[in-house]
């Protein structure tokens, strides 16, 4: 162990292999938004194509369809992935949240049933956590799954389920002990989203597309075999999953570096186009700060990855990551919107694909999407409480 920030030959070979495959396979035109039916199917095909190159879940063990890459290697792959603006991962909740959870807590039968189909891009998975009265307070969940013979009978109301409108399976927390309170009595259960008694209503986002959904359960029957881990263990399993989520896997630094690069390019173009007109110095400062922060986030991730490879773990400091990337993402998009001026509001004419290809549209869509960053996966106010309490040791409020 010693700080040595050079890639090995194996790293370089991996990068070259990934680059060659991606350049040959990444769709020439951006795919339409995966929050539309058309876009979802296009992204689903892309997941299958990724799998055909064995790039769909590079950190998974080979037995489950992965390459068994370590986190540094994963970072290299992600850099190549975002370098060519490859499509966002429609199945990221399956790949990075459910899959790893199942590998840790699932039975051999469950793994055999779910992992190969997940890896092959055959099943898309949606997270089914939140409820209308719970929000960032997950322990306040009320939706019940009551045992009835070989089944759980689910009743209740879930919300903010990302991409559940078009996905195939859901994984979530349910109260299997209706008399329980708070963290106790919750269980981790998976179910097909088309199960009878499950009604899904898309919730349109700021951009009008139904990127998430609410899910109504009315006596929906789910086999007991689809319980993950033990009954009542849901909270501890979910906390492990939430750790992954807030941690690095879902937020590639490469994604933010690519956005920062596009922002710098936009700034250069706009500055050149301004000619002699006075320049808003605040924009130059904002662009510079954004680039710095994207670099810092990438370096921090390499440092964390090294620490994890060396046997360390991520704890509450994952909350620092969440706050940092989500606010960086807002800052980058705000700067871009300011640079674009009156062009920012214009929607591209015609198809979803045209919108995805249009520079201004991409920034505006990205801006609206970025505003969700400080909210989902544990609102930043909650994350800051966690940092203060668990990292710094300040008292509960």
């Amino acid at each position: 162990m010693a700080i040595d920030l050079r890639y090995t030959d194996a790293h370089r070979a991996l990068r070259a292999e990934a680059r060659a495959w991606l350049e040959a396979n990444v769709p020439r035109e951006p795919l339409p938004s995966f929050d539309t039916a058309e876009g979802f199917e296009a992204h689903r095909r892309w997941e299958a194509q990724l799998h055909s190159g064995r790039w769909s879940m590079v950190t998974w063990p080979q037995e489950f369809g992965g390459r068994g890459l370590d986190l540094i290697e994963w970072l290299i792959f992600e850099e190549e992935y975002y370098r060519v603006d490859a499509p966002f991962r429609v199945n990221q909740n399956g790949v990075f949240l459910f899959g790893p959870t199942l590998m840790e807590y699932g039975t051999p039968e469950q793994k055999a049933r779910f992992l190969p189909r997940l890896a092959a891009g055959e099943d898309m998975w949606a997270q089914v956590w939140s409820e209308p009265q719970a929000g960032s307070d997950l322990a306040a969940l009320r939706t019940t799954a009551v045992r009835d013979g070989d089944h759980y009978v689910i009743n209740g109301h879930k919300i903010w389920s990302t991409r559940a409108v078009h996905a195939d399976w859901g994984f979530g927390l349910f109260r299997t002990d209706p008399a329980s309170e708070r963290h106790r009595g919750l269980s981790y259960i998976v179910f097909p989203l088309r199960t009878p008694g499950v009604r899904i209503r898309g919730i349109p986002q700021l951009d009008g597309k139904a990127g998430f959904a609410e899910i109504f359960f009315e006596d929906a029957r789910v086999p007991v075999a689809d319980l993950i881990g033990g009954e009542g263990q849901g909270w501890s399993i979910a906390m492990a999953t939430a750790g992954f989520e807030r941690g690095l896997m879902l937020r590639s630094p490469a994604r933010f570096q690519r956005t920062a690069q596009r922002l710098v390019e936009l700034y250069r173009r706009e500055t050149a186009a301004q000619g002699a007109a006075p320049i808003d110095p605040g924009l130059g400062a904002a662009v510079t700060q954004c680039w710095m922060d994207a670099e810092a986030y990438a370096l921090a991730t390499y440092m964390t990855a090294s620490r994890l490879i060396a046997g360390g773990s991520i704890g509450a400091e994952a909350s620092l990551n969440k706050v940092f990337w989500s606010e960086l993402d807002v800052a980058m998009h705000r700067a871009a919107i300011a640079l674009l001026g009156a062009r920012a509001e214009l929607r591209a004419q015609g198809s979803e694909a045209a919108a995805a290809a249009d520079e201004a549209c991409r920034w505006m869509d990205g801006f609206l999407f970025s505003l969700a960053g400080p909210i989902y996966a544990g609102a930043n106010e909650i994350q800051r409480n966690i940092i203060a309490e668990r990292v710094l040791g300040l008292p509960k409020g």
Partner: protein
Amino acid sequence: MDFTFTEEQELAAQALRGLLDDHCSGADLRRAAEARGAGAFAAARALRRERLKELGLAGVLVPTSAGGLGLAPIDLARLAEEAGRAALPEPLIDVEGIALPMLAQLAAAAPGAHDALAAALAQQATVLAVTPGSGPVAAAVDADYLLVGRSPDELALHRRDALRLTSVESVDPLRRLATVELTDAAPLAVLQGSVARQAWDAAASRSAALIAAQQLGLGARMIAIAVAYALDRKQFGKAIGANQAVKHALADAQMRVEFARPVVYAACAALDASAPPDASASLRVSHAFVAAADAADRAARAAIQVHGAMGYSWEVDLQFYAKRAWTSAALAGGRSAHFARLHRALLDGSAATGPDHLFDAGAARA
């Protein structure tokens, strides 16, 4: 030296607020947005337009000699604020604050504009101005007449149907944008040279100042929506509005709105209904534009954050006000250009600084 509105000005604003509370609620905006040009809510829009006519604002900035009310931009400030507060889709402020005074200037020199002015003053026609060289224009598709120029040295009046309009979609579903192109049709009337340029300059300043006033209203409305939500929504066993993080974010937004307010009012007070502003008034307008745009943006982001996941959904009306605030920040030259202008004026010494220069020139009108 007095920095309070008249009772008449306040009463007019209250009347407009009452009208918009009744006819331009969040639910009204939602219906209009979801209809998206389908015309299903044309009746609601027509009703709102009729009610707005009853306010008797037609020609508010047009000289009495030309049949108007002969008032000044400051008389529109509180009304613009209320229009912003309601995210009014109709171009009330653009028509009365920007286009009509220009049309009156044109009509004074070119008889071809008389009919249009008379129709507008009688509230039988809608007139909008299309800034030369700018992009798509909101509500142009609904106008009867458009003031356009091939350059800032030309001010020409056309019937809308003599121009080529192409609808463009905005991220703000209530801004019915269209690009406007000239055809071979001759204008009904035209002004050229420095008179036209001055008319455009004056219009640009009025536009920036009155958009800033609308931003004040938008900011205040979004804070009010967030406060209502924070009182209602419970989490961890208490109203989320009891959390300091929520309180302080909204307090900061309120502070930015309240300290943009006097700048906006002073900017409006420094403007004339038709003459271009002097350098000092022009800087104050830029200041007002930046301060109000930033305040509304901060209110928008704070309010969305307070709403949690709801804030990111189409389902809360908050989005209509937020999108209006963001798109407005790019109008009238845009927030960055105004900020850059202030920065350059400070750097080259042309901006007045120091305690005894506050009202150097900017307050000349009254």
